[in-house]
C-alpha cells in the first residue's frame, strides 16, 4: 500500500522493450541501480515492465548500447496528473481551499453530545456549556476540560461524576446523576455533633409505619404529625441516677417512616375546545446553513390559513466524529384545520379520567402508593369541574440538622471543681 502510494507519488511508466538483446538490457538496468518491476514477457525478445519516471532518461544510453527500443505504453502517478491538468488553475485552487477550510474547521467544536443525563435536560446542559464558553463553534484550545468537569459537578449538585473529552470536532460530556435525594441517604455523624441529623415530617400525615435503626423515635404508628415535626431525633439524652439529663449523645437518625397523606385533586375540562386536524396538504422548502447563515429555496406557494412547521435537518460530517458547520434539510409547512368541538358529559368524563390517571401515574412513579380516591365531576357554567382527594401512603421523612444543646452536667462538674479549689 505504502509502496504503491510512493510509486504513484513519484510517477512511473509502463514501457515496452523490444530488441535482440533485451535480456542484456534488463541485466544492465539492475547493474546501474535502476529498479524495474512487473517484468512480463510479451513475445520473443519483447518485454513489458514498469520503471520510475526519473530513471527513464538514464536508460537511453543502455538502449543504444544493446540496440533495443523502449516505447512508453502508459504513464502513471501524480507528476503526470499535474502536468495533464496544468492549465486548470481553479481546480487545484479549489482543492487547496477546501482542504484549508476543513483544516481550519478542525480547530473548533461543531457538535456537542451529552451522555448519561436523566433529570437534567440536554438543552439545559448545552446552554450551560455555552455560558462556560464551551458551546457550538468554540475553539478547542479555549476549553479547559478539567475546569469544565469541576464546574459541572459544582453547579449541578445532582451530578456526582462528570467527564468531558473531544473526539474529532465533537465535544462529548459524560455525566452521572445521583438519582437518590441527599435527604434519603443516611449520613454518618462522626465526631462532629453539628453534622447530626433528625428525621422530620415533610408534610402533614398520619404515621402508617415506623422502623427505627438509629436515633430516638418520637412518634408511633397511628399518630398524626404536622409538616416539620421531628419524628426521630438524633439527640439521645443520657440520664443520671436521679433521672435528670447528664449529657447528650448525638448520632444521626436513620429510620423508614411511611405516612398516610391526602392529596387534593382539581381539574377543569372546558365544555368547548378547539381541535386541530391535519388536512394532509403540505409544502416544503429546502435549506442549506453554513456558519449560521441560511440559504433557503424560495417559497413558491401561498401560506396556508392555519399550519404548523416541522424541520428535519442533517449535519455534514467526515467519518464518525468530524462534524462540520454545514447543515441541510427541509422545512415542512403542514396545513391543519381548526374545529370547535363541544364535550358532552360522557366525553368530558372520559377526558377527565385520562387526566386523572395520568396524575396518579406521576404520583406512583415518585414512590407513592395510592390507597384510595374520591373524585367528583360537575358542570359549572361552560366547563366541567373535577375535584376530590386521593389517599396515599408514602415515605414522609426528611433529614434536618439536629438542635445542639449544651450538656448541663458538665457545667455542674465544673462548678464543683471550682468549689474544691477554693
Amino acid at each position: 500500500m505504502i509502496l504503491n502510494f510512493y510509486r504513484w507519488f513519484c510517477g512511473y511508466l509502463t514501457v515496452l522493450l523490444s530488441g535482440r538483446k533485451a535480456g542484456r538490457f534488463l541485466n544492465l538496468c539492475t547493474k546501474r541501480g535502476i529498479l524495474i518491476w512487473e517484468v512480463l514477457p510479451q513475445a520473443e525478445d519483447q518485454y513489458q515492465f514498469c520503471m520510475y519516471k526519473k530513471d527513464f532518461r538514464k536508460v537511453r544510453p543502455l538502449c543504444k548500447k544493446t540496440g533495443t527500443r523502449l516505447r512508453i505504453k502508459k504513464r502513471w502517478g501524480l507528476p503526470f496528473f499535474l502536468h495533464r491538468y496544468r492549465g486548470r488553475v481553479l481546480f487545484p485552487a479549489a482543492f487547496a481551499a477546501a482542504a484549508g477550510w476543513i483544516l481550519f474547521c478542525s480547530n473548533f467544536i461543531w457538535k456537542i453530545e451529552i451522555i448519561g443525563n436523566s433529570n437534567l435536560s440536554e438543552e439545559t446542559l448545552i446552554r450551560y456549556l455555552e455560558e462556560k464558553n464551551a458551546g457550538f463553534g468554540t475553539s478547542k484550545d479555549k476549553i479547559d476540560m478539567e475546569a469544565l468537569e469541576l464546574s459541572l459537578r459544582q453547579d449541578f449538585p445532582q451530578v456526582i461524576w462528570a467527564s468531558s473529552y473531544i473526539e474529532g470536532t465533537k465535544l462529548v460530556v459524560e455525566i452521572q446523576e445521583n438519582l437518590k435525594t441527599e435527604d434519603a441517604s443516611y449520613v454518618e455523624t462522626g465526631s462532629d455533633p453539628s453534622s447530626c441529623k433528625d428525621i422530620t415530617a415533610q408534610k402533614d400525615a398520619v404515621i402508617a409505619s415506623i422502623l427505627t435503626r438509629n436515633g430516638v423515635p418520637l412518634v408511633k404508628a397511628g399518630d398524626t404529625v404536622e409538616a416539620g415535626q421531628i419524628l426521630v431525633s438524633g439527640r439521645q439524652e443520657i440520664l443520671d441516677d436521679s433521672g435528670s439529663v447528664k449529657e447528650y449523645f448525638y448520632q444521626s437518625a436513620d429510620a423508614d417512616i411511611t405516612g398516610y397523606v391526602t392529596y387534593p385533586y382539581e381539574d377543569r375540562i372546558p365544555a368547548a375546545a378547539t381541535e386541530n386536524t391535519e388536512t394532509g396538504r403540505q409544502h416544503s422548502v429546502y435549506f442549506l446553513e453554513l456558519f449560521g447563515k441560511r440559504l433557503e429555496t424560495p417559497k413558491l406557494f401561498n401560506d396556508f390559513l392555519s399550519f404548523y412547521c416541522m424541520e428535519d435537518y442533517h449535519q455534514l460530517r467526515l467519518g464518525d466524529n468530524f462534524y462540520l458547520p454545514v447543515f441541510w434539510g427541509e422545512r415542512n409547512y403542514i396545513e391543519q384545520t381548526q374545529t370547535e368541538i363541544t364535550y358532552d358529559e360522557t366525553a368530558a368524563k372520559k377526558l377527565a379520567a385520562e387526566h386523572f390517571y395520568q396524575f396518579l401515574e406521576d404520583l406512583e412513579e415518585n414512590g407513592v402508593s395510592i390507597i384510595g380516591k374520591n373524585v367528583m365531576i360537575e358542570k359549572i357554567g361552560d366547563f366541567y369541574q373535577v375535584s376530590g382527594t386521593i389517599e396515599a401512603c408514602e415515605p414522609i421523612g426528611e433529614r434536618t440538622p439536629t438542635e445542639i444543646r449544651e450538656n448541663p452536667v458538665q457545667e455542674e462538674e465544673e462548678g464543683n471543681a471550682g468549689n474544691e479549689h477554693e
Partner: protein
Amino acid sequence: MKNRKHVNHEKIVSALELPKDLLLGMPYLTMNGNRELLIENHRGILTYTGRQMVILTKTHQIEISGSELYVEYYTADLMKIRGNIDGIAFRS
C-alpha cells in the same frame, strides 16, 4: 616451482559456521509454495519466457520451469518470480 595446495573455501566456511551466501556468493532461494520464488545473489537473467527462465548465479545456472512466470521485481541482487513453478534445476 612452488607447489600450491588447492584451498577448499567451502570447508573453511562450513567449519567456521559462516554464512555461505555472503562469503561464497551462493544463491539464496526462498519459496512460498510453488507460487513465489525469491532469489538473492543472482547475476542476471539469461533466458526469460513465460514457461522457462534461466537465472545466472556465481556458482550455477538456475533453470525454472512452469507457466505464467513473470518477474515481480528485479534489483541488482534480488529477484522475485511469480507464477506456477513446476521445477527448479541447477546446471553447472
